[in-house]
């Protein structure tokens, strides 16, 4: 009998090579499993990236988590400034920025430089105001109602439709992509699991002999775990490169058709790390999950 120490030792290079051999023994199945996983990861990635960029543009467009509360004209500037504390007490309001009439006028003329008509306006026609930042967009209507009840506030402006539109789009997109990603994960895991089950079937004689001579379950299992791991990692690598190419192509196409730069897109250089990380994480989870489902049953006795 050979050293008892071997019971727990992890012979990485052996298991890894056996895993590779397993993969090579079913080139077509492994190729299919990897391709499917690549497809799943790409769909997952594309969905997420579209969602991220859309959300970015929508919120920039509407600035919709900001509402404007106008202060009663009868109040002195000092009284107006003192309102800040009251406004911050309203639940869901996270910041209150005071804007005096003069500042408001200046901002307005700067934003509309071509409208000469407005260039010499009297600040008196503007009101002092607060720009309030809202934490939870979904409760914006309720929060607006509470702000309106603060003494000294005469009017509140907000983009109600835009806000609820964004919330709806965001929620629907999140649910749809979560469901889609979930289904794709199950499908990938299933395909990898079937590929590995095929390998275990091919190697059933070897497995039976390993058991009879006293190999541990762990020893028998590891090559299949590496097989799944390798498939997941290879799929993640390929999917990452394809996602990168796809993103670059789409970015170029949009830039070419969008002379006014209405739509801004995050550069890939800013998102590659999370993309790579989640692809590898998901690839490994699917690969190892697949192999564990495949070998769970046949290791009893």
């Amino acid at each position, binding site marked *: 009998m050979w050293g*008892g120490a071997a019971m727990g030792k992890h012979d990485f290079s052996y298991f890894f090579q056996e895993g590779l051999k397993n993969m090579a023994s079913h080139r077509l199945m492994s190729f299919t499993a990897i391709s499917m996983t690549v497809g799943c990861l790409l769909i997952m990635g594309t969905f997420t990236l579209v969602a991220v960029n859309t959300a970015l543009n929508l919120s920039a467009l509407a600035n919709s988590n900001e509402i404007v509360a106008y202060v009663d004209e009868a109040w002195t500037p000092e009284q107006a400034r003192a309102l800040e504390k009251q406004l911050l007490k309203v639940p869901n309001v996270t910041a209150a920025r005071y804007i005096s009439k003069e500042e408001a006028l200046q901002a307005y003329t700067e934003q509309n430089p071509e409208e000469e008509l407005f260039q010499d306006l009297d600040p008196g026609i503007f009101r002092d105001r607060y720009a309030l930042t809202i934490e939870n967009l979904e409760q914006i209507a309720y929060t607006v109602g509470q702000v309106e009840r603060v003494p000294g506030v005469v009017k509140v402006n907000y983009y109600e439709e835009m806000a609820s539109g964004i919330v709806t789009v965001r929620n629907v997109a999140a649910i749809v992509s979560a469901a889609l990603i979930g289904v794709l994960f199950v499908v990938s895991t299933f395909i990898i699991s079937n590929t590995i089950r095929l390998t275990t079937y091919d190697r059933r004689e070897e497995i039976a002999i390993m058991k009879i001579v006293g190999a541990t379950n762990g020893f028998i299992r590891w090559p299949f775990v590496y097989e799944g791991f390798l498939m997941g990692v290879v799929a993640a690598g390929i999917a990452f490169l394809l996602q990168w190419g796809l993103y670059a192509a789409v970015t170029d196409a949009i830039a070419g058709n969008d002379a006014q730069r209405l739509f801004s897109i995050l550069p890939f250089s800013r998102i590659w790390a999370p993309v790579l990380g989640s692809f590898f994480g998901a690839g490994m989870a699917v690969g190892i999950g697949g192999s564990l489902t495949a070998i769970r049953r046949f290791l009893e*006795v």
Partner: protein
Amino acid sequence: MIRLKDVELVYENGTKAIQGITLTIEDGEFVFLVGPSGSGKSTIVKLLTGEILPTFGRVMINGFSIMNIKDRQIPLMRRTLGVVYQDFRLIEKKTVYDNLSFVMRAVGASPREIKERIPRVLHLLDLDDKAQCRPPELSGGEQQRAAIARALVNNPSTVIADEPTGNLDPDRSVELMRLLVKINQMGTTVVVVTHARELVNRFGKRVVTLDEGLVTHDAVGRYVGGRRYG
């Protein structure tokens, strides 16, 4: 040491394969286990390897109690055994050398141990020049010796052979038995399951005779009894 105490085994389909056997095999013994077909010989082999558990009674193998053994310890128990099957169970796509290195690897032997051990075992079984052959390229006798080589390569304290001469002509069978006797003389306990009456009588070893799941004779010398065999 192998010890069966009041062992009964009923298969799931209700077949009472072993009906109450008590049997002790000391370290270093050579034992023939004989009996007609269906008398329970292979069932005893499966009990000894832990493939099946007794329905009743106790089984002790080289210090492990099969009833109380932890899952983790089953591999350790199996490492004390070398099993030879009638149908060899060699991996056809691996060479003889790889069939041996594979089972050494499976119990954690280092590449150096493997390189030292395999040539010695192949030499013992007169398979020196067959190391790079695959099983289908070997004769029946050579395949049988390769199967024994694989059972021996992990240096077990007990070798169990289930009908090892089943596929061999009489001369080859005698040769194989001599080999098993030689292995026994080197200190290994040997249990040989067979129903080859002439062969058993030739060697003058302890013979345990089974019939219908019971031990009917246990004595040194001859294959006695057995209403039917074959």
